[in-house]
């Protein structure tokens, strides 16, 4: 009897390890990036979050950025700017 080789149509994920930088335990004195994905009210939500973080958690400064629209990725230079200027970035808002 011959051997039957069964092929799968499904893809194989690339397995790798990465590490995330630890989140700061305390936001006092930190700079927070706010990345607006342009979904409805994202600007209001992020703006208010920023205010609250300043008032209640001692955040030093805020950096506000906006994508061109919700369905295209943030350009690499914008992400690089955020990585340089902010300690933590908040983004993601649904319809």
């Amino acid at each position, binding site marked *: 009897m011959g051997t039957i080789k069964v*092929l*799968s*149509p*499904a*893809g*194989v*994920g*690339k397995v790798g390890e990465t590490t995330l930088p630890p989140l700061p335990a305390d936001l006092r004195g930190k700079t927070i990036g706010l990345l607006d994905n*342009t*979904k*409805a009210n994202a600007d209001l939500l992020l703006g208010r979050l920023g205010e609250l973080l300043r008032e209640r958690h001692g955040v030093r400064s805020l950096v506000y950025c906006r994508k*061109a*629209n*919700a*369905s*295209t*990725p943030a350009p690499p230079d914008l992400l690089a700017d955020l990585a340089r200027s902010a300690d933590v970035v908040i983004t993601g808002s649904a*319809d």
Partner: protein
Amino acid sequence: MLRGVRGEPDEVTGRIPPAWHEATLEKLAVNAVMAGCLPEYFPVIVAAVEAMLDPAFNLYGVQATTHPVAPLLIVNGPIVQAIGMNAGAGVFGPGWRPNATIGRAIRLILMNLGGAWPGAGDMATQGQPSKYTYCIAENEAESPWAPLHVEHGLDPAQSAVTVFGGENPHNVNDHVSRTAAGILTVVADTMATLGSNVKWYFSQSQVLAALGPEHAATIARSGLAKADVKAFLWERARLPFGRLKLGGMWGIHDWPDWMNATADDDALLPIVPAPEEILVIVAGGPGKHSAVIPNCTFSRAVTRPITRLPA
């Protein structure tokens, strides 16, 4: 299936978002077999995958969005006849193995390698039937104008595939017009609707007019070149500013400064940035129908020559 193209089975054409699994020629071939393709269809599938992976197509967005978008494949050149594709009657419909199975193979690839499962990966609110299969050939024989791939700089003898991230076809019924102006007025009206994405994310808005051959012939008899058709549609497919404020994506739209500066509610605003963003092809058979296909507005049409034909 693999003998249908030049290349090694483990050759990687890219990774399919949002799962980002490797699209090796072997994986593409397995999906093509499952879809019911013949090996001579396979070069079209490989070229279409390469086209979809062009960053301009933004496959990640096309796959993951809540919009119903599916990649429409438009095939041009000698391969259409060579593999027996339908460009005529019922071109968007059933009955032709290459049209049906090439489109089906693309969908299986997008699901099996891209992870675009409804509700998980593919977040379409409703989706659309063309997510099963969406593959046509241009009816070059009955077109009064240069075919799509020639417009993009390719030789007429070079087969090509264009991928267009589109909605389902919207019907354009005009049984009475005897002039280009008459038919194109109805086409323009079908293009300018509040509900489609086109015009909201303006910079990447594109719309495809798939003219039935009888409509195309009437338009050509009026003396219009394809560029004239695009210019006419660009000027007429417009919506009043006041109407745009009624809903849709008003308030979260992405417009250039000159449009944002509009104050007059009666001002008519275009739905795409330039006439060139209106694609015009001829497709279908006898009858007085055409179709309009708006894109998803975060993806641009990409044309690729079909080059992997076996020696």
